[in-house]
């Protein structure tokens, strides 16, 4: 347990973004092994590894891959979700910036195993700099014969890889919204299983489509290189391998840390240099969509899917935010609510209206107008959004609020009773006096 640099093994090698350097450090070995195997054996290898989707939901990758039909004549599309938008997360940014070939290799392996026609890397519009590294890697891979026609001499293995840049929308990180956006539409979600087929059966352009996160494809490349069984030796019973956590907030050395699954939460804080500016108050372990954990509960939490769930939170995307005792949880939740209000795509009513109501109530409380019963009202609204929206954004807007009320109920009550922060002067985030948050809602 602890820090285990697997994907990050060659992160700090000079010019690892260059294909020659990457190959010298074992690059494209996984792909070369894969093309000598049966396609089904490659999928089996991923299943053996126990890899689960690293984008947030944790769906078993091998099962997703085997959902792509093997014997049809439709084109198959391989999509990489690089629309990293979850507050607190910046692991995909570093993977693309420093190890773009690892991502490209992982996607080509998926292209081979699933008879892919073309691959698209959907990168958020703001990530120009990481995208340049991916562009360079794709161009080099074409010249080296890893992309294009009859790849590595395998007859009929043709695979093209394209970059598709987003244009500023958190919602496009949701897989059905991402597909809409890739097809040139507003980034709004579509009906899902059981009301519609899985994307692996009918995704973009009504063809079988695989969508995985950047980190998942990178892990797939490593798994083919080291072997699924070897990868599965890392981690816990049901959470295999390693996970990259983006540590931010009140720590001495905020950065991306790759740890073995099951590492105690406190160990990661230690690795990041410990808490600064005060004592530890709370941790959000998996991005803004997951429930906050109180300091006294932190020692019980291990960084794997099961332990997080048992402790009332989620592993999520690995956006690990640490807060010291100067942090006002109610203001923090108000800022969270503002984020979801801004990012709700507006398609379904519970999310579009609910996120606004949550924000307005929290704004009322933190402006000194809180009323008795406001907390119950918040819980009621959250229960009306959770599970009732088109996609996960609604759930993700409700969970952190419910989690914060459960963990820090006394702070909400204090705000309502005393009309000021329980933390006292100098709290963070500050109470916005000058900035009018509604200004950010003026359409561009």
């Amino acid at each position, binding site marked *: 347990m602890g820090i285990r640099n697997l994907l990050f093994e060659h992160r700090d090698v000079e010019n690892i973004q260059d294909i020659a350097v990457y190959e010298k450090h074992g690059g494209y070995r996984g792909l070369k092994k894969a093309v000598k195997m049966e396609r089904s054996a490659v999928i089996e290898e991923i299943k053996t590894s126990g890899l689960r989707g690293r984008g947030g939901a944790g769906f078993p990758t091998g099962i997703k891959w085997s959902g792509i039909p093997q014997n049809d004549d439709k084109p198959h599309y391989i999509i990489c979700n690089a629309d990293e938008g979850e507050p607190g997360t910046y692991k995909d940014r570093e993977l693309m910036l420093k190890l773009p070939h690892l991502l490209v290799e992982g996607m080509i392996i998926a292209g081979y195993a699933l008879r892919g026609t073309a691959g698209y890397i959907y990168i958020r519009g703001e990530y120009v*700099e990481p995208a340049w590294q991916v562009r360079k890697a794709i161009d080099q891979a074409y010249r080296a014969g890893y992309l294009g026609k009859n790849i590595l001499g395998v007859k009929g293995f043709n695979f093209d890889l394209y970059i598709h840049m987003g244009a500023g929308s958190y919602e496009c990180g949701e897989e059905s919204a991402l597909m809409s956006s890739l097809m040139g539409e507003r980034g709004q979600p579509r009906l899902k299983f059981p009301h519609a087929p899985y994307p692996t059966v009918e995704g973009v352009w009504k063809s079988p489509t695989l969508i995985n996160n950047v980190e998942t494809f990178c892990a797939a490349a490593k798994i083919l290189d080291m072997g699924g069984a070897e990868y599965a030796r890392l981690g816990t019973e049901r959470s295999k391998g390693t996970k990259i956590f983006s540590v931010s907030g009140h720590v001495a050395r905020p950065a991306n840390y790759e740890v073995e699954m099951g590492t105690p939460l406190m160990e990661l804080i230690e690795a990041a240099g410990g808490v600064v500016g005060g004592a530890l108050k709370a941790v959000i372990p998996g991005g803004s969509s997951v429930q906050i954990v109180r300091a006294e509960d932190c020692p019980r939490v291990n960084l794997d899917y099961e332990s997080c769930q048992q402790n009332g939170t989620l592993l999520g995307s690995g956006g690990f935010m640490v807060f010291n005792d100067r942090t006002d949880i109610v203001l923090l939740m108000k800022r969270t609510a503002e984020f979801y209000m*801004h990012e709700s795509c507006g398609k379904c009513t519970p999310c579009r209206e609910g996120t606004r109501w949550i924000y307005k109530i929290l704004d009322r409380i933190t402006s000194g107008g809180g009323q008795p019963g406001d907390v119950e009202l918040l819980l009621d609204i959250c229960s009306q959004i959770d599970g009732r929206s088109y996609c996960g954004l609604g759930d993700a807007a409700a969970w952190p609020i419910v989690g914060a009320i459960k963990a820090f109920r006394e702070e909400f009550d204090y705000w309502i009773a005393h009309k000021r922060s329980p933390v006292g002067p100098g709290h963070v985030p500050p109470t916005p006096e000058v*900035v009018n948050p509604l200004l*950010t809602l003026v359409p*561009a």
Partner: protein
Amino acid sequence: MATTENGPGALEPRPAPPKEQRFSLNAIQELEEIASHYPERKAACLPALWIAQREYGGYLTPAAIQEVADRLGMSYAEVEGVATFYTMYNLRPRGRHHLEVCTCLTCAVMGAYDVVHELERALGIEVGGTTRDGEFTLSEVECLDYCGAATVVQVGDRYFTHVTADNVLNLIEELRQSEEYTPVKLADAIVKLHLPGSSQTGGGSRTGEQIRNNELY
């Protein structure tokens, strides 16, 4: 179109946007190349809007939206729907440098609001405003996802990291000195990222060594 023939009291149809063709030959070639990446022409809508944002000087006018619709065989409403959904498409002119300060969770607790207030004071504008000389537009944005380097400010295709209320004025000075028109530069970079082989002809990529040393601009 037939607005005047409808007579008084008739519901006037929305005036059609002016017909304008501003895509250069180069831009048309880029668009055709990008459109060939997808099985459907419509999928090139987002990249086409990026091209339009560049060709029309950093923001999308109704004419720009109309031109994209014409070139992709889509309706005006459809393209307008897309252009208004995404926050990075500008529907109004921006300053020569668009300062986008991340004030989301981590940045908010690490002092992003102090940066915003300092910028408002130094530039004499409020969030959402543009300075009179057209140099700067100030915005608050949602998570830019570089939380480990809070506070993050995006200007065009660049991220400025570890920005504080104390050092933000240096950033303003640096930008004032530069000759670039960053909204157009951003749109151009994003268009080029779609094009195979564009990494050979330049682009904004830094050397591996610079990245390794975490030299963030």
